[in-house]
């Protein structure tokens, strides 16, 4: 019978499916970070359980880490205790940890692929909703809660109901200045923030095949913002070229046999999906959000919608609340709206190609007087590569701040945050109320739109500066 990419991976990982119970699904790779793991390790201690497969478990620090120093001890007592707890837990349970001073440390969803840990056909979980990022390699990767982190630590398995499948077909060619970030914002705008609930996305079509791995990661990263816990892309030569030679990728004969396996993964031609949406990317513009969830976005040339056109009272209220929080007027354009901060970073858009795109716009220019530009690479490896290319100088000469790797202002746990009332253009993934700092207001956009807006101090269509 014909199968989708998702179904092939799911079927290969079902340990047991008893009637009336969820499947016991085997997990190949478990990524761990400091924020969602302490209570899980404590649970193991209370039950007297070991970590079943420490070799398939990998830890890093990213959420509460500072980006202005890598010196310990940290000034923030709670963050320090959380990091020390992760160190102690990894030591006690024999888990590899990329510590604060490790040259390969970075955002968990950036380093997995970088190290070659993320591979096609694997099941990958992490106590973090943006684990969907790893689906770019043709893995089944999704975020879990802390109880489930404990389940995987203890048994290397999860109890899961089989999700439905949702084909997202992107066709056509992107215009210059329009990126993978604009594709995913357009999708979420189309289907809504809960549109993919209960489903796994598979992104396909010529527009997806044309993307490089970093762009594919941006696409899969925000699957969760459309309600889908996982988003996947069939592995192809682009995937294999990215992986070849990476630290944890198979080598020699093992590489050849892995390739044979990986080539068997793409969905069969007549595979059936539960749902499907088709989007022509050739007409896409740079997208910007205006509201307080990632589905509230518009093409940059358009105007903010009027809540009055919503017939459902609760939905109309939500939209009115969003515009009130953002202090924006229905019917007014977003383009030209003043911004205070521009944040380039996060597991969505902090990879080398993102930084290069932003630097290409910023080279020889300076940011507007009233704007703070914060550039935070996704990993220490990316930071060094960027510095070798001189990208750090471009950002600094533009009066931007160049930082060490971490989640930073995407989640605002480490001191990098907006002040109440400030407006930010951010390349991150969530514009929820207060996400980037209490009272802060976020416009989500691509690295190109962010860089263009930093230069002018207003929301700016990057195509006018290319």
């Amino acid at each position, binding site marked *: 019978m014909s199968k989708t990419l998702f179904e092939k991976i799911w079927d290969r990982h079902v340990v047991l499916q008893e009637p009336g119970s969820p499947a*016991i699904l085997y997990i190949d790779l478990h990524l761990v970070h400091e*924020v969602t793991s*302490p209570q899980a390790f404590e649970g193991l201690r209370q039950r007297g359980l070991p970590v079943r497969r420490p070799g398939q478990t990998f830890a890093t620090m990213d959420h*509460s880490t500072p980006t202005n120093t890598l010196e310990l001890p940290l000034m923030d007592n709670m963050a320090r205790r959380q990091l020390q707890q992760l160190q102690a837990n990894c030591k006690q349970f024999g888990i590899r940890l990329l510590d604060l001073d490790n040259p390969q440390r970075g955002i968990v969803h950036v380093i997995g692929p970088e190290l070659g840990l993320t591979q096609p056909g694997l099941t990958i979980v992490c*106590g973090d909703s943006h684990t969907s990022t790893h689906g770019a390699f043709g893995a089944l990767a999704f975020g879990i809660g802390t109880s489930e982190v404990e389940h995987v630590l*203890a048994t290397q398995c999860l109890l899961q109901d089989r999700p439905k499948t949702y084909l997202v077909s992107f066709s056509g060619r992107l215009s210059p200045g329009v990126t993978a970030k604009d594709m995913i914002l357009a999708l979420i705008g189309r289907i809504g923030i809960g549109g993919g609930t209960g489903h796994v996305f598979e992104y396909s079509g010529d527009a997806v095949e044309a993307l490089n791995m970093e762009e594919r990661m941006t696409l899969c990263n925000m699957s969760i913002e459309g309600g889908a816990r996982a988003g996947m892309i069939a592995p192809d030569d682009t995937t294999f070229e990215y992986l070849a030679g990476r630290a944890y990728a198979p080598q020699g004969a093992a590489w050849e046999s892995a390739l044979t396996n990986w080539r068997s993964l793409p969905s069969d031609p007549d595979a059936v999906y539960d749902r499907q949406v088709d989007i022509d990317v050739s007409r896409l513009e740079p997208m910007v959000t205006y509201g307080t969830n990632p589905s509230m976005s518009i093409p940059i040339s358009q105007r903010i919608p009027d809540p009055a056109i919503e017939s459902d009272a609760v*939905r109309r209220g939500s939209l009115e609340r969003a515009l009130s929080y953002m202090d924006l007027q229905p019917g007014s354009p977003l383009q030209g709206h003043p911004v205070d901060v521009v944040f380039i970073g996060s597991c969505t858009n902090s990879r080398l190609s993102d930084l290069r795109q932003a630097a290409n716009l910023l080279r020889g220019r300076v940011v507007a007087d009233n704007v703070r530009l914060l550039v935070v690479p996704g990993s220490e490896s990316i930071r060094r590569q960027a510095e070798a290319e001189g990208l750090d100088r471009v950002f600094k000469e533009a009066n931007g701040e160049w930082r060490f790797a971490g989640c930073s202002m995407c*989640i605002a*746990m480490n001191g990098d945050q907006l002040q109440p009332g400030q407006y930010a253009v951010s390349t991150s993934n969530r514009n929820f*109320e207060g996400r980037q700092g209490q009272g802060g207001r976020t416009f989500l956009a691509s690295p190109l739109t962010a860089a263009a807006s930093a230069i002018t101090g207003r929301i700016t269509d990057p195509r006018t500066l290319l």
Partner: protein
Amino acid sequence: MECFKTLTSGIIPLARDDVDTDQIIPARYLKVTDKAGLADGLFSSWRYLSDGSPNPEFILNNHEVQGAQVLLAGDNFGCGSSREHAPWALAGWGIRAVISTSFADIFRNNALKNGLLPIVVDADTQRRLFAMTGESPTVQVTIDLASQTLTLPDGSQVSFPIDAFNKTCLLEGLDSLQYLLHHAPEIEAYERTRGWAL
């Protein structure tokens, strides 16, 4: 885990769609290494004014809902981050069930593992419940998990879905990790069929 069998309780109406876990518990409360005290941060950006005093306009500060254990929400409750701190904070405050037309997948999983019952109702029932709480803030609902029945304040009943596995876990207070541990032999047999090492 605490058992969930029946519950008769007042209702806390939160007429907002797409309540994300960043609102349920903001990230600044996530630097803890245990589960204690998270109720203080529940809905904190909505619940407190910028000077730290309670926001009188926010429903959780309404004296009529104090002691209520059922939250009535708009569509798509619990979207966003995977933080289990969200159900920990809700349960810590005293909430034992949330009624919505839909729940985000990760939140739903997390809630069920903490004895917090997500109850899915249709849009009409949701609208009626909001209307009833609007007319009288102290009305009550009764939840009977065994029969999967929600009794509305007007006495009418609707049934709600829940899978057999989670229903049993909640009714008997069972921890789902025990089920996995019980199947260690099958997990071991599965591992032997695969060659995998990082």
